């Protein structure tokens, strides 16, 4: 299998993933006997591929979530999907999501473990933003795992199914803040185009000013 550990040069292959947390205020009913009294929220931190039918287990051995040190067993290791940890708490802190790839030369994956930092959010980003009645907070981030120069083995695993087929529609209109769809990318691209146009207009503007100034300077020197 040493041949499958060979890296394919000049190629990258990406898998869109979502990571982040959901949080909800603890209601008296939800509290358990073991729940500390000062905890105000129940939250779930997670890491998952955007598409549900994508299976990353051939690649990923486990995902560890490093919580704040005040938690019992701050490093939670999840061996199987869904990779998520549900806890209660009162404060926001940074969670380190660490992805452990299968090791072993004979497997041919040969990737280092990979960290993602996620700031746990319990409160809405924006107080003006109409928060949901239930007080739910979703901090879901889109990103892509990019395997640069993947080994042939990784290539094989990731080309089993197309993993980048983002949906064009939300599965549920209420989940606007939990899902990313293809139109988001298109919108963002359009937005960026607008910005670039703005900047290039400004560049044109500045260039003209610069030329004027140059002529003024020449006039002054003569």
């Amino acid at each position, binding site marked *: 299998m040493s041949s499958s550990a060979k890296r394919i040069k*000049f190629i990258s*292959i*990406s898998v869109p993933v979502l990571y982040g947390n959901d949080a909800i205020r603890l209601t008296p009913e939800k509290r358990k006997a073991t729940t500390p009294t000062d905890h105000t929220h129940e939250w779930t931190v997670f890491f998952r591929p955007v598409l549900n039918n994508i299976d990353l287990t051939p690649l990923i051995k486990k995902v560890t979530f490093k919580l704040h040190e005040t938690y019992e067993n701050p490093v939670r290791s999840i061996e199987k999907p869904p990779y998520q940890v549900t806890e209660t708490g009162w404060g926001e802190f940074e969670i380190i999501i660490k992805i452990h790839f299968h090791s072993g030369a004979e497997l041919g994956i040969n990737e280092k473990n990979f960290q993602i930092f996620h700031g746990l959010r319990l409160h809405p980003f924006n107080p003006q933003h109409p928060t949901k009645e239930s007080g739910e907070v979703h901090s879901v981030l889109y990103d892509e795992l990019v395997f640069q120069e993947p080994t042939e083995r990784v290539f094989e695993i990731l*080309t089993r199914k197309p993993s980048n087929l983002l949906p064009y529609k939300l599965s549920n209109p209420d989940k606007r803040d939990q899902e990313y769809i293809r139109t988001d990318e298109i919108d963002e691209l359009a937005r960026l185009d607008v*910005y670039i146009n703005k*900047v290039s207009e400004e560049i044109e503007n*500045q260039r003209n000013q610069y030329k004027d100034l140059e002529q003024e*300077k020449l006039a002054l020197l003569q």
Partner: protein
Amino acid sequence: MSANDILDVLNVQRDESKQPVKKKQKTSNDPYGSGQRQSGMARELYNLLGPNTPPVNLPLAGTAASKASLKLKASPWTKMPFKPNKHNTDSKDVTFSHWVKGSRELLEQEEAKKPYFFEKYNVKIDIPELVDEETYEKFMEEIKEREKRIREERRQREKEKREQEARDRERREKEQKEQKEAANIGDKSDSKSSEDEMKVKSEDSPIKDKKEDKEKAESIHANDKESYNTISVDDSSSKDAKDSQESIEAAEVEPEDWSYEETQYLFELCGDFELKWPVIYDRFSYPTHRSVEDLKEQFYRICIKILENQSTSNPALIESLSAYSKPRELERKQYLENLLRRTPAEIAEEESLVIEARRFELAAKKMLIERSHLLTLLDSPQTTQQVQQFQSSQGLTNLYNNLMIIDKNQKKRQLQQQQKQVTTGNQEPVPPPIPIAASSSFKKDRSFQTHLQQYLSGLLKQSQNLNPNVKRESNAIQQLLMKRLTQKEEEAYGLFFHGTEKLNPGVILRSTQKLPGLQQKQSVLKSVNAVLQELDIPTAGGTSWKPVMPTRKTMTKYDELIRSVVALLELKKGKDKLEAEIRLIKSQRGLQ
């Protein structure tokens, strides 16, 4: 010297505490006890064992057996006289003696019946006896006559060949001439007269040709005669011929005649050395110089003559004798010599050529197999029945089943063929299946390949060239190539071909991708953000603003944006500088 002495010499320390115990054991184990001590060399050897127990139970049997055997009576040996050639009355009647086991009385009885033991190895080969001088001369005449005839015939054949060639050449020349003339005639207006001329010419030429031929033949004949007489002429005439041929021709020239005495001498040698030609050649010392081939030739042809004139001759033997041909033998030896004298470089070249040839053969075989596979694929079942009966659904299922059976049979046949090839121990490797990406048919079908696919297929071919043993079936690259994706579909797989851009192997997050636009100082990035804010571009307030949805496309756009902002900053800096200069100039002017 005992074992302890040796141990002392070798500086080997023994565990003193254990030694006495072992010694005791040894003595108790001693099968012969103290009374039966060994003596002489045996004892010395035994002492060398030291405290070790002997590896085998040393037997005293040797001495005992010898003692026992001594008691037996010695077997009698007798010096017996014998005659080596008891049945050959010709040889001198000599008597030798040798020692034979057994008593004299017994042996004398036996000897009367038995022949001499080694008599059976005294075998003489059957060589026909040489005839007297008169018949020999007659034979030689006949032989010479026949050989001359053969030579004449051969010469005749060669001459004819040469004549044929000459005729061909002339005809060709004539044709060319005619063509030229025809062209000339085309220029001239009066074609009739030229035609007549042609006729005259064409009638004339055969006669001329014949005459020429005759002349030529005569001259050749003369040449031959000359060469027949002397060696030197022959040598000079065949100078342009190849070396081997030259030697053969030289040999063909009549050698010195064999006298009766010489032939007799030869026959004697043949009898003495039992037709071992190298030995005969070595011993043959006669004033005339003869090669092995000469000796053989003379011997065989005389033998043939003798046998032919005998009443009870074996035709098969005569035939095998007459199969000997001196020129051919010389040629064979020449070849062998050449073979022996090859340089290592030539040998290597030859070997490589052989290997190459073998490879060609294999390739041809492979192609044939492939073709046969193709043909079996193309082999379609013939329609022998009316189409109507397949138009009902039942007829259709019948047809389908039939087709399935035929298909299965074909597959089975193919399998069997393959198995046969395997089981018969056929060393020819069964050609491996051609990978689809590498086969020519794939290339033909391919109408368009994205950069990625071109790159990947190139990579695949390379790796296969490097290592043809790589399993092909499960190659992911190949499978992907087989899907023949479009650019859009490649995106769906998240695949991207970076061209010659340098990548750091490993996993990264798209949002932390190292973009060229972000390879700036922190201060520059800060001012970039400031500019963005100036332009009403939301940056979420921070310095690390990134697209919300970092995909490859958004990130490249983002990179473009950052870079254009950096360019804008540069421009602004330049403008500010210019403004400052103008201000400076103005202030200077103002002062003046």
